[in-house]
């Protein structure tokens, strides 16, 4: 069973692993205040689908992908955390106020920079005692030698008796600041994730499900309940990664561009050899940079609910998200009359600037009136009675239609704006009929008139523009993947070519690109836009069945994967130094260092993979000797380092199974 608690919906699927088929699926609203309510509703809907009884009782594994950690970080929730820094201070925002520093830390060769002063350490720990629920320890260059962090951990466990998080255990990447932040966030999430796991377990018990519970990581792989309790930070940004894994399972493709079109945004990611491409910088959450592995996803502000607006005779798309007019009119039918009035009368009487004539506003919640300006109060009073079009609001308030000042209320999510969107145009074209087609049509007619087009011309032109935009963002994302950062539609030298690729212009010459991999499209409006997008990019389009629950499928079908590198470098005193995640060690001969790194690395990773809940573990140890040529005059080869990459991949352990492993070298 795969469960995904997303921003709007909580999805559930049952996947039969022998036939590799999705046998049941369900969607319930995500309940942000308490995620388990949404999860329970989701299971209830699954259960109510009159599935064969044994299907439910035979569940061998429950895998969860959750936004909980991401949300908790953004909202600043979690436990009180102490941070003990060794050998170096920190500049920049740190997500805790209990920060202490003690002498210690290493240099780039992993030699002691300063002796660890255990007395100072104890003093710092005692100063934080009673004030914190968990401790994060971060040493300068601990990724070259973890010994100080490990010594402090032992000391802290004796003195404080609370969970201790060592930065080097979460990442092997350089960056003292990011490692420290990662450790603090991880420590802060410990109680939050523990609570979630416990309440999910309770829900599962109600349904008699006793299978192991696993959680999706930011790279799309799975980890066991117990590892999740230690490394909750690994779950951030796991949703998009799960959807990529889901896409590969549903299509059987290993290399593809995965495009997910949502209401607000389009997410593009690359699938390589069945795995999402990772972000080398680490994941950023809530404005904080971490060193957590996460899929590299490019997000662009274009989606089904992006605003289609007209300015100076030009049609623009997004990035603002609005309510589609078809949705607004569906909920509040009187808005249709108001929009008709705009069409018959208002549009001719007055130019609107700073907004669109078809804009309507809806009150979302009753705000605290004390924090509002007199003008804002008046607007709230008007909208409290009913949502309105801007001409109506102008008439009621006696203000000019271009000077209503509603934007700050929208920014604070007190009111919502409805306007024309791609979703509306799909209603006009007859592809959709979910909401109110008439509302969509008046809106489109008004905007078409402003561009001097008839309704059909406008609808086709605008939908074409949306397709081009999506094709453009896919191209942009692929260029980002190979390190090209600039905006392809702004770079002067590139612009004429991109415009011809996207069919915006054909003047003088044509230009074509051909993607060398298919596009896998998931998300609601993909059938309507993506065929044309794939045509522009000259590639195959795959829209898998069950695409709308790809995240949950990805959770259910994920693998357990662990990976790290061991560095072996020449020592200035002669001999070689191993920098491994668990220790730094000296050797006289390179061959001995390599043997030791490979065999210990294998033991270490097998243990981690099994703790993470893997069975049928394949361990691969790859050795890469890195040399560089010196200048031509020199004609020497310089030995830089040996990298031992240790990787373990296994399938998640199912209920009533034993663990075991094997090695491939």
């Amino acid at each position, binding site marked *: 069973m795969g469960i995904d608690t997303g921003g709007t919906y909580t999805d559930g699927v049952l996947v039969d692993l022998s036939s590799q088929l999705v046998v049941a699926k369900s969607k319930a609203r995500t309940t942000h205040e308490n995620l388990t309510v949404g999860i329970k509703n989701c299971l209830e809907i699954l259960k109510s689908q009159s599935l064969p009884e044994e299907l439910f009782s035979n569940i061998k594994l429950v895998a969860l992908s959750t936004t909980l950690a991401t949300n908790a970080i953004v909202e600043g929730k979690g436990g009180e955390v102490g941070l003990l820094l060794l050998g170096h201070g920190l500049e920049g925002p740190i997500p805790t106020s209990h920060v202490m520093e003690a002498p210690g830390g290493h240099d780039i060769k992993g030699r002691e920079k300063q002796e660890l002063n255990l007395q100072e350490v104890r003093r710092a720990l005692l100063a934080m005692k009673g004030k914190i629920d968990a401790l994060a320890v971060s040493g300068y260059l601990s990724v070259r030698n973890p010994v100080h962090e490990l010594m402090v951990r032992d000391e802290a466990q004796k003195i404080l008796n609370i969970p201790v998080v060592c930065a080097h255990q979460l990442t092997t990447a*350089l960056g003292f600041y990011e490692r420290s932040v990662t450790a603090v966030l991880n420590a802060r999430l410990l109680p939050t994730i523990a609570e979630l796991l416990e309440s999910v377990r309770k829900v599962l018990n109600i349904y008699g499900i006793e299978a192991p519970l696993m959680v999706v990581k930011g790279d799309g792989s799975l980890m066991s309940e117990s590892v999740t309790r230690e490394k909750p930070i690994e779950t951030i940004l796991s949703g998009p990664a799960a959807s990529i894994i889901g896409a590969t399972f549903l299509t059987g493709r290993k290399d593809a561009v995965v495009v997910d079109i949502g209401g607000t945004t389009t997410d593009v990611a690359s699938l390589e050899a069945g795995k999402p491409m990772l972000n080398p910088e680490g994941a950023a959450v809530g404005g904080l940079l971490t060193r957590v592995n996460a899929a590299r996803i490019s997000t662009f502000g274009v989606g089904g609910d992006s605003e289609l607006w007209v300015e100076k005779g030009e049609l623009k798309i997004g990035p603002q998200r609005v309510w589609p007019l078809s949705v607004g009119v569906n909920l509040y039918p009187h808005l249709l009359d108001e929009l008709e009035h705009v069409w018959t009368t208002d549009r001719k009487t007055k130019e609107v600037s700073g907004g669109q004539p078809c804009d309507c506003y809806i009150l979302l919640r009753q705000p605290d009136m004390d924090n509002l300006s007199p003008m804002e109060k008046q607007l709230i009073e008007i909208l409290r009675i009913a949502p309105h079009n801007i001409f109506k609001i102008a008439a009621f308030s006696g203000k000019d239609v271009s000077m209503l000042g509603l934007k700050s209320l929208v920014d604070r999510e007190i009111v919502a704006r409805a306007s024309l969107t791609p979703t509306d145009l799909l209603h006009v074209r007859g592809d959709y009929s979910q909401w109110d087609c008439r509302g969509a049509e008046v809106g489109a007619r008004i905007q078409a008139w402003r561009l001097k087009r008839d309704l059909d011309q406008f609808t086709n032109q605008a939908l074409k523009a949306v397709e081009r935009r999506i094709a453009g963002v896919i191209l942009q994302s692929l260029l980002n993947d190979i390190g090209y950062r600039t905006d392809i539609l702004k770079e002067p030298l590139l612009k004429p070519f991109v415009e011809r690729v996207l069919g915006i212009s054909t003047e003088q010459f044509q230009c074509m690109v051909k993607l060398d991999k298919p596009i896998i499209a998931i998300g609601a409006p993909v059938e309507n836009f993506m065929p044309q997008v794939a045509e522009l990019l000259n590639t195959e389009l795959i829209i898998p069945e069950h695409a709308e629950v790809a995240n949950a499928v990805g959770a259910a079908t994920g693998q357990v994967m662990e990976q790290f590198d061991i560095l072996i470098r020449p020592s*200035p005193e002669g001999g070689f130094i191993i920098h491994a995640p668990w220790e730094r060690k000296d050797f006289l001969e390179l061959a001995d260092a390599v043997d030791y790194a490979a065999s210990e690395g294998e033991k270490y990773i097998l243990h981690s993979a099994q703790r993470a809940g893997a069975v049928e573990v394949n361990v691969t140890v790859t050795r890469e000797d890195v040399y560089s040529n010196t200048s031509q005059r020199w004609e020497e080869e*310089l030995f830089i380092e040996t990298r031992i990459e240790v990787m373990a991949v296994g399938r998640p352990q199912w209920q009533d199974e034993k663990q075991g492993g094997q090695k491939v070298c």
Partner: protein
Amino acid sequence: MMFSFEEVQSAVMAGEMDKVVELTRKAIEEKLQPVSIINEGYIPAMNVVGKRFKNGEMFVPEVLMAARSMNAGMELVKPLLVEGEVQVKGTILLGTVKGDLHDIGKNLVGMMIESGGYVVIDLGTDLEPEKFVEAVKEYKPEIVGMSALLTTTMLAMKETIEVLKEEGLRDGLKIMIGGAPVSKEFADEIDADGYAPDAASATELVEKLINA
């Protein structure tokens, strides 16, 4: 007597400091380009010194004499190089990495860059990565240039870059490297932004990195 490059070259190679100074004065009087005095006078001479040292035809004291006499001439040329340029285009930190004492090439590079209108802060030789870190924090340069002449100290360049990463300073900087054994391949391998084989192309590299 007319000035000739051959004469300057043999004076540098022989380490005759007074003669180098005298010939350089003459060159300046004859309005030769300061850059060509360096590129066509001193550098070819030092290249020959290098070869002879390698082949065991010259020994350390002689090499040092050659370097010193070149420096003496350089003292005269330097003010001319910098003259005229007023606008400061950027700040460049320069240093020879840990374990390495060679600074002739680095000094030349520094002078040439300075003459291009940049502020050059020379940190010296045998610099621990931490010295670069402190200087980056203090001077906030656009570019850090590292020099190494020994294959054994090339790795110190990699380590210096790694320490800058640990300190979170790498992203805001451009890093260029150079020195006789250094190659483009090595620069790419250690994640430097650029490499230049000589002082003239070092100036071009600086322009390129600053405008990137």
